[in-house]
């Protein structure tokens, strides 16, 4: 797999990074061209050998060739697929702007959540205190009176 211009090179100076990126783009494009050319060539060959030849020997020879070409096509397609996955990875890992946006958005959300939770906890505490007061007053006005009566 292509390793030219190892993607993330953010550490270097900008010019070098740009150069590396351009290099990488070039190699990727080259790869795409190669693979697609490969597929087209092989396919046209396969189409071309559709003609039935007179000497049967050649036919079987062509059959072998066809198989070979077909496997080359599949190989090229696989390589394209790998390229696509590499592009995906680059998109995922090098889209720093989106990443930062995400992080900020997430931070914002989480901060809000934390604030909300804090507020909720405070409210729960107040509610509990209020309930405690109420319960205490109920307790002393109900059970205790009966205790007094029995005493």
């Amino acid at each position: 797999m292509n390793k030219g211009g190892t993607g993330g090179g953010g550490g270097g100076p900008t010019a070098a990074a740009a150069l590396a990126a351009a290099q990488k783009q070039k190699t990727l494009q080259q790869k795409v061209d190669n693979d697609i050319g490969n597929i087209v060539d092989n396919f046209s060959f396969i189409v071309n050998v559709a003609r039935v030849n007179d000497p049967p020997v050649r036919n079987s020879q062509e059959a072998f060739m066809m198989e070979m070409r077909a496997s080359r096509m599949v190989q090229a397609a696989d390589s394209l697929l790998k390229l696509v996955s590499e592009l995906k990875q680059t998109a995922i890992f090098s889209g720093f702007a989106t990443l930062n946006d995400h992080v900020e958005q997430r931070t914002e959300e989480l901060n809000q959540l934390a604030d909300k939770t804090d507020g909720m906890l405070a409210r729960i505490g107040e509610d509990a205190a209020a309930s405690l007061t109420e319960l205490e007053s109920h307790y002393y006005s109900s059970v205790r009176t009966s205790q007094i009566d029995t005493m």
Partner: protein
Amino acid sequence: MDGNMEISVDKLPIKRLESIEENGAERFPNEVGYEERRLNLIHRIDFGWAVDREDSAKKHKKDTSATTTTSKDATKPWPWKSLVENLQAAHQELSVIIDLINTVEVNDAVTVAGMTRPKQLPNELLSDLAVSTATKLQCYRHLGKYFKQSAKGLEQQIAREARFYGALIRLQQNWKVKRHRMAATPGNEGFYIDLFDNSLYDPAASFRPSTMSTVWVEHDAAGMLAINLPQKAVRSLQFGFLCRNSDTAAIQASRIKAVGSDQDPAGECKKEPESDDDCVKNKHAILREVHRAIFDEQVFDLVNREAFNPSLGVNITGIRENYLELNLSQGASVFISLMPHKHEDRVADSADNQNSESALVRSEFFNDSNAKDRTKDPRKKSVFPNRVSCEIFLQQTFHEHVFVQAKKRTTSGGKMHSGQPTIDRSNLLGHFCMSLAHRIFSNKILRELDDLVSRVPYVHLISHPTWNSRTSSWTLSVDVPQSIIYASCQTQKSDKKAKTQFRTKVLVNDCIKVEGEGAPNVVGLFKGTSERICSINRYDCDLADLPMILLQQIASQIIRWLHAEALMVGIKANRDFLCLSFELEQGETLGLVAHVNPEDPLGCISWWLVMDDGFTEEGKLQSQISDTHNRKFLGHLSLDVLYSTLLDLVSLCSGGSNH
């Protein structure tokens, strides 16, 4: 076999019975040698099917040449007849050619000068062409199949990658996903999730990165994310009290886990096909669990660091690997440890685990309810706070004061968060221990207060949440009944408002502070001028004295109330510390004395009526206790009864004075 019509059934190439004789003997066909069979075959060709039929040793091995087929076909009646003849002709020609070749091979003298292919007939040409075309078509079909198959494979791969990257993107929104190119195998890229947030920490603190801070992500069979947890199980912080019987349960199971975190990290996806959503959620849950484990490890690390700094309130009494035992000042010992979660258990029976968790909760709940049942003997109630909340408190303390502070410092140049008491960042463990000690101590006080309140019926206990971990506060209030006289003259003198409630505040921070109104203060007592009443009294006391002081306070408040009531009625009454005395005629005084006894199981404040003839000094009151003539035990009176007693006394006094 009359030669007209005949059907020959092909025999299988295995040995068959030819016939069975009457005596049961089986007859197999004779073995035929190669030569003989060849001869037979040639015979067959040469002499046609009629001869062939009579051949006794027809044999049948499937792998034989086309001639066998011929013979088989030949037996069939019509459609193949011409073909059979053609083939026979071809065979003849072939035999001639073979003979010729053999002759040429044996005899060097003969050389082949030239060979021409016989001119093909048009139909032969066509059939050749047809065969070639058919072959080619077959080839293309084969190719098509191959393409289809590989297309399917590639599609699957695409789908897998789409799933994987989709899930990865979703994880990336919450976690730091990094790419790792392995040098050994180029192209084989790995992903890992970095859970260690190094931007948070003080560089001086030099946190050591946890071994779990990188979690590898891989494809599983279905193309989904598979998270590769390090074999070392996820550990979590545990906290418990050592002197508690129920801690065997506490050691076994630590925390009430969220339901989602009880998932098998590796095999869950394989067990049942679940949607991407669920899978990603699962991974989230696992990562959160790991994250929390890392946090726990860091907290434990910090606790260890602080434990060995000489600091206030922390005494280490035991230490083991991942285990720390501390002694609190209230005679309690706690342990803080890192315990591994056993993944095997969780995989095997996560449901059971949940059951056991809930069982633990239930048992704690029952413990609590048992404790409630035992309110008759509140001393048995445990003074230790809830273990889980202590654990949360420990984590929260460190989170609030180390992690959040560090984060704030990095983001906004350090703005101190106020609200809680300012805590020295270097002594968080000390703060925690002191908070725990305070909690235990305040529980003991609460127990005392509860005990006291349960025995003095007219005293109410009101709790005041302070929202401070090292301060607690309660109020004991005595609601006195409204006086009849006051009620009648309330409309007239609305400005003079009688007191209907007396409060005593108990505040605990480092020591117990009792703050009450309406009691004579001690200085006033020594001066002998009991009338001088300090409106608010403040005491510092310890736990042993607390009930006594409180009871005195309450009793004096009641005395004060009775005094005020007596004055309102218009009777001259003197108030002493816990005694209300009325002057009768001839210098006699009748005293209503409160007797305070914290150990009294029935009611802590009892009342005596004491007759004083005026000669005995107040100091000799004790010696007169034995004298039953001069004093009468009234018992534990409720406020209403006390009030009516007072009115009786008033009528007695006024009656006496009228006399």
